[in-house]
């Protein structure tokens, strides 16, 4: 039963959790003077220019900076606790089972409200359909079983601001317990959204605060939650993938709290098992595609990238997206990967860890010395790095290729063939220049599907529901239908007897989903 999940009792435990975090952060602080000074220095610089509300905060840190040199070591430790408590309280969310029950009914609506609070009626109409068109795949039965035996950390790919809501919706629909997650504080400024997120156990992450003490509090908070059985949702990519590619490198900070929580819990009478479940979230259309790819190109291209046009208005696009997403079955596919322990061993239904040869392994052996659990930062950082690598391998294998990815791949292949030897940024300048006859386009799509199928046979990628077994013409049709009228600039424009390659940035964006599999062009690698 999902209702047995600890998050349903979060409010009772809230102050206990905050105090636990404060105690651990204080204990772990090797040099309180340095920690406080770093915090004060960062905050004074950040808040200096901000008038009004945050003035008091600024003054507090000014006062701290002035006094820490003079006060005693025990007084410093007390100040560390004070600052940590302030942050921990700010981070900790709230969980209201009534709001949860309500929201699971209206979550799909909230999804559209998330980005377009103005248009309530549209959201309501779309919600029922989204239920049908969101496809979930993977060892869901096993994940459900594991969620009763330990803490599950869901670690999905990250493409869109819709991800956490779509993912939360999928968990509920599959009878999986809700997961707590850190959401950017900026999302809490919308009062409506803030109400939902707060009461769904989301905790607040203020990305503007960059000092170590804050990061410590945040990580410790996550660690304590995991240790206490709160299923968690991390986007280990850190931010949305700008390029559209599946993540090949992860941010390890929060992920590391999985290992840490496991070691901590070994000291107790009932150790808490920790299971990591990678997942891919695959969209036929990405809401923010144009902005994301422009960000990416501007960053990697620098002076090579020439900005073409601006993004269109937000509301309009959300409306179209929701309409588009509900049109096509399987336009959003969430695929869960094989669950593993924090040391990358596969986990069976009964919670046992097994190595690659199927032998049962006791995960405690990785972190105990002479029978005692030992925290070793360097060792655990390396375990976390390897966990990150294993998650990335899972992402590549569990990537679900949808019509838009394959058709963009075929079209981008044509673009490259039309201008052999040109580098990426020259290539992208050829908007609306290349005509592809319809039969050639179909042949290219068919060829790509064949190659994707060969990879799928080797377990290296997954064909989406609308692609498997479908003729190339249908796949081509599905992609063009999805794109048409959604992106401001046509991605693939139908013309006399064929197509014109339109928005080359978006072709790159959607084909980038193929990059890691080797089926498409990989902008980060040397040209092969």
């Amino acid at each position, binding site marked *: 039963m999902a209702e047995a999940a600890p998050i349903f009792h979060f409010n009772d435990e809230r102050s206990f959790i905050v105090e636990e975090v404060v105690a651990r952060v204080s204990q772990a602080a090797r040099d309180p003077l340095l920690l406080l000074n770093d915090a004060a220095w960062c905050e004074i610089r950040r808040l200096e220019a901000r008038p009004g509300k945050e003035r008091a905060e600024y003054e507090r840190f000014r006062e701290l900076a002035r006094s820490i040199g003079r006060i005693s070591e025990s007084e410093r430790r007390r100040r560390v606790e004070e600052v940590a408590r302030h942050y921990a309280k700010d981070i900790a969310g709230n969980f209201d089972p009534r709001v949860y029950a309500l929201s699971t009914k209206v979550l799909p609506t909230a999804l559209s409200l998330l980005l377009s609070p103005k248009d309530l009626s549209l959201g309501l109409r779309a919600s029922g359909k989204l239920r049908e068109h969101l496809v979930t795949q993977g060892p869901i039965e096993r994940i459900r079983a594991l969620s009763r035996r330990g803490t599950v950390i869901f670690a999905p790919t990250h493409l869109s601001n819709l991800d956490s809501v779509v993912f939360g919706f999928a968990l509920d629909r599959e009878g999986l317990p809700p997961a707590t997650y850190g959401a950017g504080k900026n999302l809490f400024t919308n009062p409506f959204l803030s109400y939902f997120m707060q009461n769904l156990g989301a905790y607040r992450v203020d990305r503007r605060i960059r000092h170590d003490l804050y990061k410590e509090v945040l990580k410790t908070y996550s660690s304590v939650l995991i240790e206490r059985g709160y299923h968690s949702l991390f986007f280990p990519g850190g931010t949305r993938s700008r390029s559209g590619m599946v993540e090949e490198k992860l941010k390890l900070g929060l992920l590391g709290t999985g290992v840490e929580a496991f070691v901590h819990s070994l000291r107790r009478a009932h150790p808490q098992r920790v299971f990591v479940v990678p997942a891919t979230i695959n969209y036929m259309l990405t809401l923010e595609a144009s902005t994301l790819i422009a960000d990416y190109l501007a960053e990697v291209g620098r002076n090579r990238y020439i900005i073409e046009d601006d993004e269109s208005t937000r509301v309009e696009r959300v409306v179209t997206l929701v309409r588009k997403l509900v049109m096509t079955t399987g336009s959003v596919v969430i695929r869960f990967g094989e669950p593993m322990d924090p040391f990358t061993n596969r986990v069976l239904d009964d919670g046992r860890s097994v190595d690659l040869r199927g032998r049962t392994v006791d*995960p405690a052996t990785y972190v105990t010395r002479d029978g005692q659990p030992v925290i070793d930062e360097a060792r655990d950082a390396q375990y976390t790095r390897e966990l990150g690598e294993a998650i990335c391998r899972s992402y590549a294998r569990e990537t679900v290729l949808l019509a838009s990815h394959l058709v963009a791949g075929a079209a981008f292949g044509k673009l490259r063939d039309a201008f052999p030897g040109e580098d990426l940024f020259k290539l992208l300048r050829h908007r609306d220049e290349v005509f592809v006859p319809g039969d050639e386009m179909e042949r290219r799509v068919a060829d790509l599907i064949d190659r994707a199928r060969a990879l799928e046979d080797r377990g290296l990628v997954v064909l989406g529901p609308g692609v498997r077994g479908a003729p190339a013409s249908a796949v081509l049709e599905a992609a063009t239908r999805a794109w048409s009228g959604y992106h401001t600039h046509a991605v693939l424009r139908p013309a006399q007897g064929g197509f014109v390659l339109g928005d080359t940035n978006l072709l790159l964006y959607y084909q980038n989903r193929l990059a890691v599999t080797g089926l498409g062009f990989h902008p980060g690698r040397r040209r092969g």
Partner: protein
Amino acid sequence: MNDHPPTPVGILGGGPWGLALACAVARNGHPTLLHSRRAERPDRLPAQVAVTADLAALARHARLLLVAVPSDVVREVARSLGDVVDGAHFLVHGIRGLSGEGLTPISEVLREETPCRRVGALGGPALADDLIVGRASVLAVASRYPEVTDAVRGALQGPLMRVSVSHDLVGLEWSSALNGALFVALGYARAIGVPPALLGGFLTRGLHEAARIAVAAGAEEKSLFGVAGVGDLLAAMSQDDRPECQLGAALAGGATLAEAQARSTLRVEAATLVPRVVAFAKEHRVEATIFATIEAVFSGRVTREAVLSGLMQRR
């Protein structure tokens, strides 16, 4: 005579390298157990080293296990080992080679075949004989886990052994393996009378080529210029008894690869490795003239004159 408290160490492999490591570890006063499948006790094994044929006994004896078996049996040995070790063991191998068609680093094989995560590798210029007779020498160890490099340093560092530490495991393994091929070339070149200046130039090119190849495989470039990289090559310049060099010399003398292999005391891993390395370089678009030449030498396709003129050519 050692700063490190006595800590049990287990060694796998009754060949020359297993013997050598056992000597070095026992010399530092650590309780040493050697696992060997051979019936008889190796000749020069110090009396204080115990020998067993039972892998489980080895796993119980020590947390740190040094694996010194030939690369062609390492997978099989590791699989048996996997049945008796757990996540607490440190596995460190001393094998100069990469496994199979995929050029899998041996540490990766250990991870695939056992539940162990904390793995590492030994490299560097020390010869087996240095360790056996107790000549001052240098070894390199690499692991992504500081605990592992600490343990190896504790076991091997002593008055006669300097242990150099790195975290770039891929770098050490690729560097060692590629050096193995360069040693063969060195032995060959010396035997056909390549003068020192040209030899220096050729080894430098070989080193840079090895660096490019290793980087393509995920190594850090600087690892190729460390003890297990350039240090290894510099030592080989005057290590006439290096088995790889002897194999190269035998090839230069007109022996076929099979004949040359048969004469060698240690198994030379380079012979099977080089064609795969050349294919790998091609696939990753890395220029690898020296390695292609070594491949030609192994296959017996070229004359000494052709090799010599190849070394002089510019493209």
